[in-house]
């Protein structure tokens, strides 16, 4: 009887090991698939291209360090070409065919808004790299973002202008989602800083000339002109302003915060002031700045792999990946756990800033993510008040 019993137990153990053993080995070896959707071609490729490269680089880096809890990461990346319909098709592929745990991207506000419903329904954490405030306000349970909201950039800029006692501004914005959102924030926050907007103009993303708009702005005699757009439009604005010999100080947005802007605008870039992430002036940061080392590491890694110069845009994907990696720890690949972990991340220092998420805030940044920089002698200068 007891021998029989022993036999049975042994059999059971053998069967169980045979059945579960390989499973658990499989489990240990299984990869975590992370989806990526970026505008790597098309109009917003200046955002999507560095983001895609950064994501691939970060996955390699995490895998080289042994993955997360022994799981390797695998990136599945699709190109949205900045087209909402393409982004929807990409997100469906990621959810239903590739079975990803989390998604990084897309690069622009419309493409992000287009896929929000799909990730919410499928319950997959999304970390967007787009700036629009509509993405995380109102808060959606599964949607986070790493790019600073325009509202923070506007606050930083207006604070600076207030200190310089600038009262009347004329604004010129690009007629796409970036410029439109910027214009909304510029208008809604102006009152808080005692600033009045005396003229509002816009230009097309592909316009080669903005002199009519600038002539009109000049007519309203503002103390300063704010241009809100992404390359190359703002460079045209800067050049045209010089050509028209209008001597009104020009301010730009973080949308041009990359070396490309200086090379496009050339001489006309001199003395332009703008809010930017710290990446442009990392060498001028005080040694005790917590972001300094991370910025340095990111630059070294990116430049040695791809050449060229780093921009804050790729940084959005860098931060999204480090956040995902952090949230994946001890999650066993469970998406609900990943989401909950993301929401509870506090004081996570990244390239863009210091993230502290909460159920009410899925962007997690403050206006300290911005510094004011000035272009002097064709390079970026940190402004300290």
């Amino acid at each position, binding site marked *: 009887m007891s021998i029989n019993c022993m036999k049975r137990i042994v059999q059971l153990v053998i069967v169980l090991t045979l059945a579960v053993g390989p499973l658990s080995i499989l489990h240990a070896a299984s990869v975590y698939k992370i989806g990526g959707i970026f505008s790597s071609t098309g109009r917003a490729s200046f955002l999507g291209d560095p983001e895609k490269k950064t994501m691939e680089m970060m996955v390699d880096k995490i895998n080289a360090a042994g993955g997360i809890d022994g799981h390797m990461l695998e990136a599945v990346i699709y190109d949205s070409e900045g087209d*909402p*319909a393409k982004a929807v098709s990409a997100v469906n592929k990621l959810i239903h065919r590739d079975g990803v745990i989390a998604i990084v991207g897309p690069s622009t506000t419309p493409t992000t*808004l287009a896929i929000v419903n799909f990730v919410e329904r499928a319950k997959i954490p999304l970390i967007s790299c787009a700036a629009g405030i509509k993405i995380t306000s109102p808060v959606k349970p599964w949607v986070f973002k790493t790019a600073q909201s325009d509202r923070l950039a506007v606050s930083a800029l207006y604070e600076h202008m207030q200190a310089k006692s600038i009262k009347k501004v004329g604004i010129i914005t690009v007629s796409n989602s970036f410029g439109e959102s910027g214009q909304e924030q510029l208008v809604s926050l102006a009152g808080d800083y005692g600033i009045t907007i005396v003229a509002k103009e816009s230009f097309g993303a592909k316009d080669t000339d903005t002199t009519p708009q600038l002539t009109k702005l000049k007519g309203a005699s503002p103390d300063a002109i704010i241009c809100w757009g992404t390359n190359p439009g703002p460079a045209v604005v800067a050049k045209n302003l010089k050509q028209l010999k209008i001597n009104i100080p020009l301010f730009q947005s973080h949308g041009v915060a990359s070396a490309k802007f200086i090379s496009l605008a050339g001489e006309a870039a001199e003395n332009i002031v703008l809010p930017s992430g710290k990446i442009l002036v990392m060498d001028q940061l005080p040694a005790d700045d917590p972001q300094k080392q991370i910025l340095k590491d990111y630059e070294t890694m990116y430049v040695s792999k791809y050449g060229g110069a780093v921009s804050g845009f790729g940084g959005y994907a860098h931060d999204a990946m480090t956040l995902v990696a952090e949230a994946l720890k001890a999650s066993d690949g469970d998406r609900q756990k990943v989401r909950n972990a993301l929401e509870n991340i506090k004081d996570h220092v990244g390239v863009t800033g210091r993230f502290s998420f909460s159920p009410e805030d899925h962007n997690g940044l403050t206006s300290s993510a911005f510094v004011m920089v000035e272009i002097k002698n064709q390079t970026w200068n940190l402004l300290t008040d």
Partner: protein
Amino acid sequence: MKGTGSIINKGLVQNTLFVLAVILMGAMVENTYLLQIMTFIGINTLLALGLNMLMGYAGQVSLGQGAFYGIGAYATAILSGTHGVSPWLALVFAIALAVGVAWVVGRPTLRLSGYYLGMGTLGFGMIVHIFFREAGSLTGGASGFVGIPMLGIGSFMFEGGRSYFYLVWAVVFGTMLVCRRIIDSKTGRALAAIHGRENAAVALGVDAHSVKLTIFMFSAALGAMAGFFYAHFVLFISPDSFGFMASIKMVTMVVIGGMASVWGAVLGAAVITLLPEVLHGFADYEMIVFGVILMGVMIVMPQGLTQGVVDQYDRYRKKRA
């Protein structure tokens, strides 16, 4: 070639096969991604059908069809999203609006011909596109319109899977039947006459302008319907989906599939929707491959794929004989 009896029989067989194929595909495909791609093909087929009637049968080129697509999408988004109107009521209104706009725009524009008609419709498309972008308080502006409700009947919701696939393809099938009826009707024969030689048709008493206008309004209605289904499927719309490139894409679908052919519209929509999915692996070379395929098809089969395949088959048979 125009024996009435045989056409009905042939049509019956084709239709039955088509319906069976759609039902089977919907039932067998488990993957939501594939179902969604096929739903997009259905929506694009509606667009191609409308434009095909205009281009293939009436011989009028429109480079502004994206405008009607957008009008349909935005009308339902604003009515059902902002004002809480039932989407089905919004559909009626969206179609009425598109037809009305088509009437106003078509009256002067369709008097133009050739490239000037192309330019006129292109200009109209641009104006509508700019309106979507600039009327921010109404349309959500360049960032897009968020908050479009899901379609449903009673408590049943057409969520983005199988049920929506069947809904769209049922509408596509109905539309195909309507298109066939029009082609075989008096209007259809008048269309054929205009396409052949407009002056001769006019001399024979065909009111060319009003026939063209009718078809223009019909194609606008189909465009708006496609926009309606797009909006309630993706639940988000932004102006860029309805711009110049969208219009060009529709023309490409019609021409690649084959003009003056209902099946051509289905085939063209399928090819142009699937091609980018298939070519995805080429990454940065995708554009080149896509363009080369487009040019290749046009050079080898100028009549489009449906006619082209038939021609190739004929040639093959002749060789055998």
